[in-house]
């Protein structure tokens, strides 16, 4: 089975976000594999171990993303591909990412493509479905269970807390939801082996992509942190007075009614 995992390098969840000059400060910050993508990698490794085949992890970005690819290799992926857009593109959006990934994947005869349900930074959840769309294959998002039997794939999908069971056919793209599995730590032997596994670096040129074709279609207008949470207020007095006060506050202060 030919398995591909789409991986994104994101801020460590424990990192504090600092915004200066309209941009998020990356200096000295720790980066990790997007946690949802870790579920995807783990699932890919389990499918390969059960069915045979090969797992290739793919990411878009700069040199720095090599570290996350090495981590995926250390977990047990077989090959890694870095599509380095650092020199060619200043900005990437969901459209550009999906386009580039699809161009890369179109002749790879992938049986199964996995990605995270959403990246914890941008949080759009679009790239996976867009790639499937461009490749003309089916996709299922937010999966919590995957069983493959020949060409048939049985999937449990999280639907806002409920579960939906469905069946699909390979080739297929799925995106992973929390609960799909428990990602393994890269073991020390895994880490040492990862050094020797192939990590291919491609540029847009290698994929015959023109910069203009992948120009971002969205513009970021502003980046700001959520407003500081202020202490709540407890209303006092008769219940009916409290209700009146609440309505008046919602109207005059919060301006929501």
């Amino acid at each position, binding site marked *: 089975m030919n398995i591909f995992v789409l991986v994104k390098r994101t801020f460590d969840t424990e990192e504090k976000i600092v915004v200066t000059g309209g941009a998020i400060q990356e200096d000295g910050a720790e980066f990790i594999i997007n946690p949802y993508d870790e579920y995807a990698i783990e699932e890919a490794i389990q499918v390969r171990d059960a069915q045979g085949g090969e797992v290739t992890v793919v990411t878009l970005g700069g040199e720095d993303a090599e570290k996350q690819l090495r981590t995926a290799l250390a977990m047990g992926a077989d090959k890694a591909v870095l599509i380095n857009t650092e020199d060619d593109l200043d900005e990437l959006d969901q459209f550009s990412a999906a386009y580039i990934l699809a161009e890369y994947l179109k002749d790879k005869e992938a049986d199964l493509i996995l990605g995270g349900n959403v990246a914890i930074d941008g949080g759009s959840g679009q790239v996976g479905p867009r790639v499937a769309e461009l490749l003309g294959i089916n996709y299922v998002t937010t999966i919590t269970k995957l069983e493959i039997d020949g060409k048939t794939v049985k999937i449990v999908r999280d639907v806002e807390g409920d579960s939906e069971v469905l069946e699909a056919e390979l080739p297929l793209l799925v995106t992973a939801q929390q609960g799909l599995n428990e990602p393994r*730590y890269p073991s020390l032997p895994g880490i040492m082996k990862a050094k020797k596994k192939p990590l291919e670096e491609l540029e847009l040129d290698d994929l015959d992509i023109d910069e203009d074709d992948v120009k971002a279609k969205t513009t970021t207008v502003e980046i700001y942190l959520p407003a500081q949470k202020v202490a709540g207020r407890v209303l006092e007095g008769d219940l009916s007075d409290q209700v009146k006060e609440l309505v008046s506050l919602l109207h005059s202060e919060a301006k929501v009614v």
Partner: protein
Amino acid sequence: MTEKLANIIRGGSFLTEDVELDRVFTPEDFTEEHKMIAKTTEDYVQNEVLPVVENLENHEFDHSVRLLKKAGELGLLAADVPEEYEGLGLDKVTSAIIAEKMSVAGGFSITHGAHVGIGSLPIVLFGNEEQKQQYLPKLASGELIAAYALTEPGSGSDALGAKTVAKLNVEGTHYVLNGEKQWITNAGFADVFVVYAKIDGDKFSAFIVERNYPGVSVGAEEKKMGIKSSSTRTLILEDVKVPVENLLGEVGRGHIIAFNILNIGRYKLGVGSIGGSKRALELAISYTNQRQQFNTPISSFNLTKEKLSTMASKLYATESLIYRTVGYFEDRMGQLSEEEQKDGKAIAASIAEYAIECSINKVFGTETLDYIADEAVQLHGGYGFMQEYEVERIYRDSRINRIFEGTNEINRFIIPGTFLKKAMKGELPLLQQAQSLQQELLMLMPEEISDEPLAQEKYLVKNSKKIALLAAGLAAQKYGPKLDVEQELLVNIANIANQLFAMESTVLRTEKAIARDGLDKASQKLLYTQIFCQEAFEEIEKEAKETIITAVDGDNARMMLSALRKLTRNNPYNVIAKKREASVKLIAAEKFVV
């Protein structure tokens, strides 16, 4: 061989020589693999160990065994075991990183450390081929758990005074062991013990003793002040028949194994103290950010800032000196030929080379940890006294570190003692330098210190080396071979050496960082270095003064004190301002940052 030796940094040479920057290993030199292994260890501790800390603290040691096996699956027990015995044979830096990250687990890190360190290493380093094949694969996987049994009720620091005896049976097939070993870590569940006993009551030797040999039993679990997550019991040996094949090393040469394993144990304890210190500092900063008094987070009070920066600069120094030592070991062990790597004598020599540094690592690391743990509790106020706060456990866990693997007092004695031995053997030009220093002191002129970054600190390091030679030289001159009863002076000299090694390590690390990343990115490191060096230098001055007054009388004392005053002349910073400045990044990051 000679060519190789010339390329080795001699142990203790920090006192008599300067070292090239590229020979000094710093945490900034970690490779990607090192960082990934650090992350795996951190995740293991965070997700596997910490959730069951309560259980471990309550002596539910089934968890310890299970956790060690899990660590084995991840390779966290195999770093020091060579590949040919199903280990990973990784570098010394890796095993140091594992020890550092593991220490956040508290008492369980003692379980882990006793297994991979003092438990397994005697076989790794001094075992014969059969012993290695028999035990190492299973120790690396966690199938077998190891312990180390040296201490006895009557012999602690005086390890060679052990009373446990071994006697060869008439058939010549077994040694029969009798005796009691006290405070044995992992004794509750270990499968294999490295035990020291005197053959015929006088030939101190090491043995591999399996738990299931008839006559092996253990006492009750000790009730300890801290590291409750680790099992500590007495090992009782009653007519235990140990096959002669299980004699480790040579008859009567057990002390070689014991002392070198102690050296490694010491340096590993130092490494562990870094992890514990970082955790305590992190807890202290985040608590002082959250805790409000007078409507203000207490981290914005200047005295809190002072405390946090003092903790962090001590930690920076500790981390710098310990990883520098790790680098020495990596360098030295890496230069051993394949043949030498199997030769106990060559291995022992390369460990013993850094006996001074090992003792400094132990003393400095554990005292930094104790200081930081204590201040972290203080910053938590009354909450730090409550068991529901992690810092309470860290405080209790920290205390043993100054006692085991040779008390810090014994380790302090080792430092000047080893210097003198090395000088006598001609390994270090101490005597020559002390003599030329006498001449130099007579004509000492005050020096201009430039205001370049690190110029002041380099000057302090340079003069500290002279002060160390002066103090040690005067003490040796006065007391000669009887110096070892002047324990107060030995400790003074050790303290000077400790501070000096730490100061120089911070300067080298910061200099290396500035050369690589520029002054701007190394600004926090520079601040720590300035703060630390200034305070350490004051310590050195104090110890030197007391030594001079004790060792020299009359006019000569006045002359020497005047020389000391010249050597200690410098341009001190406003260290309060430096500490306020250094605290900014700490408070923002809520953890130790460099």
